[in-house]
């Protein structure tokens, strides 16, 4: 049967649609149900990065999205391919990362019959996607892709999954890419409520001890400039969350670092002593607030967020502003710019805390903090990704970020194995950047197979393993709260990371003395090859300071 010229297959339509969305790269792994799609990708202009496990495809798309601000795209086959994406999708959902995940599905007549490699991935991902689709008719495919990119990237961003049965990709349609979106159930908030902004401005003008608590929403909304301007206008200290790191320069005099469990003492003290907390693009996560009833006990709380459901989800709020952070901050600045800040005594107090309780560690032996400080000193403009655990907290504490989108970490879900594939995604998205994954020996082993991806696709990222032979963060909790019973946390000598790197054709380096840290970092970055540096660090170093889970954030343990 001859096909009319205008008719194309579902697989062709998918690629056409992705090109219409200006997708430049897809992270994926092929399989039976996506064969027709991969056949089209074979001569498409879109770059495909082949990973070695689908989880890494989702994390790489996430890292790409966070580094570039664009929507990341990943693809996997039906069944196990799709379920392997799940952790990555959940990670992106918790951190509000725009992601479009495309999965193959068994042909429509087989759905529901427990066919080979069938999994109900739309059912499985219901609670971890912003929205998802099962494409039942090839005619719907262009509209669904248009909607998926729109939903993923607007409002509070998040992952959208599109499940496409194999026979839909081989069906034909008369293709046109829709220009308009018609979603009557989805209208992302745009402007911020002026009345509430006035109330917020009134509170700010009366305040003597303000704190700005800024999160990932600032970065998503591209509002770092507005944040800086507001802080300098009202002369308020700024604490940035893990997801907000880079939203405010860590080296700015008004910066007080990260709040919460492993935050700086001065950030936590400032929040507790403040008379007003200006929370922007944050969600009052338990790792930040500690015991909710004792959080900022003397402060009025202004909460600015684009997601109305975040307002009063966890905490009482005095003034709430639903809207885009950039717009809201711009208007707020307009309302307070004539003010005469009266915060000098407050800033003096904070500076005293800074001097009295700096982030510090004892410099004996090869300390993980020193490795992070050295990376920061040599490569201040690098994009840093992290794994999860002690490595992540040391990176957050000791890498001083100055720009948005340069610190990429799994904040909400806390996914071990995230940092390495996220680094691959970031490097693909920003090829000129130096990209360094600050890793632990435990986390790195969760996705170390991606060394093959870095070598095959020539993605020269550096993995700095802070190797202490422990699952360090869990070990730290066991030391402090479980009578030093190190149950299942000792992993010393489990692998020779230098040989592992070499086995994949990457560069493997080892550092055992502080004086070798910087030369080796230079060698790694200078090599322009994928590289692992195995830093053999002091084994029992703890992350300090620390607020025990469930305590108020000024009940701080000193573990130096």
């Amino acid at each position, binding site marked *: 049967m001859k096909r009319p010229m205008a008719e194309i297959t579902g697989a062709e339509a998918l690629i056409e649609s992705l090109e219409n969305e200006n997708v430049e790269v897809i992270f994926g792994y092929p399989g039976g149900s996506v064969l027709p799609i991969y056949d089209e990708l074979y001569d498409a202009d879109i770059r495909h990065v082949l990973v070695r496990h689908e989880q890494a495809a989702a994390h790489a798309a996430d890292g790409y999205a966070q580094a570039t601000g664009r929507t990341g795209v990943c693809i996997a086959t039906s069944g196990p391919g799709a379920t392997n994406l799940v952790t990555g999708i959940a990670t992106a959902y918790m951190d509000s990362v725009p992601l479009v995940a495309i999965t193959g599905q068994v042909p429509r007549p087989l759905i529901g019959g427990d066919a080979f490699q069938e999994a109900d991935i*739309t*059912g499985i991902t*219901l*609670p971890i996607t*912003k*929205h998802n689709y*099962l494409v039942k008719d090839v005619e719907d495919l262009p509209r669904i892709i248009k909607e998926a990119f*729109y*939903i993923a990237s*607007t409002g509070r961003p998040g992952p959208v999954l599109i499940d496409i049965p194999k026979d839909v990709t081989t069906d034909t349609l008369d293709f046109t890419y829709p*220009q*308009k*979106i*018609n*979603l*009557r*159930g*989805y*209208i992302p908030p*745009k402007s911020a409520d002026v009345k509430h902004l006035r109330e917020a401005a009134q509170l700010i003008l009366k305040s003597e001890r303000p704190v700005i608590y800024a999160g990932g929403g600032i970065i998503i909304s591209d509002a770092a400039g507005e944040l800086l301007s507001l802080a300098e206008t009202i002369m308020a200290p700024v604490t940035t969350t893990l997801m907000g790191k880079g939203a405010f320069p860590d080296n700015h005099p008004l910066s007080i670092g990260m709040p919460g469990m492993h935050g700086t003492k001065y950030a936590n003290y400032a929040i507790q002593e403040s008379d007003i907390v200006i929370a922007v693009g944050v969600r009052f996560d338990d790792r930040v607030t500690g015991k909710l009833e004792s959080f900022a006990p003397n402060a009025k709380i202004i909460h600015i967020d684009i*997601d*109305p*459901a975040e*307002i*009063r*989800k966890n905490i009482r709020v005095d003034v709430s502003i639903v809207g885009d952070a950039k717009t809201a901050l711009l208007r707020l600045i307009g309302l307070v710019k004539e003010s005469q800040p009266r915060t000098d005594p407050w800033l003096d107090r904070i500076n005293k805390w800074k001097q009295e309780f700096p982030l510090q560690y004892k410099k004996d032996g090869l300390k993980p903090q020193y490795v992070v400080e050295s990376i920061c000193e040599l490569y201040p403009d690098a994009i840093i990704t992290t794994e999860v655990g002690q490595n992540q907290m040391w990176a957050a504490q000791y890498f001083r970020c100055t720009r948005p989108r340069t610190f990429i970490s799994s904040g909400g879900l806390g996914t071990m194995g995230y940092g390495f594939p996220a680094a691959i995604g970031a490097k693909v998205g920003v090829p000129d950047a130096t990209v360094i994954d600050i890793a632990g020996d435990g986390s790195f082993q969760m996705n170390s197979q991606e060394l093959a991806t870095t070598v095959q696709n020539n993605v020269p990222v550096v993995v700095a393993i802070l190797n202490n032979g422990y699952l360090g963060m869990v070990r730290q909790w066991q030391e402090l709260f479980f009578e030093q019973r190190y149950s299942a946390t000792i992993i010393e000598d489990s692998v020779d990371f230098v040989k592992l790197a070499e086995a994949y054709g990457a560069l493997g380096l080892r550092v055992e003395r502080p004086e070798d840290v910087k030369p080796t970092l230079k060698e790694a970055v200078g090599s322009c090859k994928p590289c692992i540096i195995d830093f053999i660090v002091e084994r029992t170093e703890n992350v300090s300071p620390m607020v025990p889970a469930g305590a108020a954030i000024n009940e701080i343990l000193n573990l130096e």
Partner: protein
Amino acid sequence: MKKHTLSVLVENKPGVLARISGLFSRRGFNIESLAVGVTEETSISRITIVVSGDDAVLEQVKKQLNKLIDVIHIAELSPYDSVSRELALIKVEVDTTTRSMVMQIVDVFRARIIDVATDSLIVEVTGSKGKIASIQRLLSQFGIKEMVRTGKVALHRMSKTAADTIPEKLQKPEEE
């Protein structure tokens, strides 16, 4: 705990109910009852949900529901400006001596008998939860073989419609 009746307009698409029930279970919200049916506009279904919880819970329920792409509109119906009904079918054991007694109760409650067998009757009753509970209690003395009831369904009184209460529903979403 306070009970609230929500009238939720949703896209009439497969899987929407799963999205809503899944949301309730994973966020720990309590559904007292839930009834779904298509509306006068065939692309839209109406779900009437009774939830229990304080005002903070209700606020979260509404906001979280609103985040679902397939949810078009949510209205809270107060008992004062809405009417609501439940329907129950009750199969009652009867014999020659008790049949007329059951029929008397059915009359008093303005219920109906919709099936008759030699040893049982099926009673159809509509009304409030309280009314259904009352007739159920009275009929239980004869022996209830089995029963089924719908969740509550409700509508705004007068000419007001659910869609009227939110102007933005009528707006066309803005172009990307």
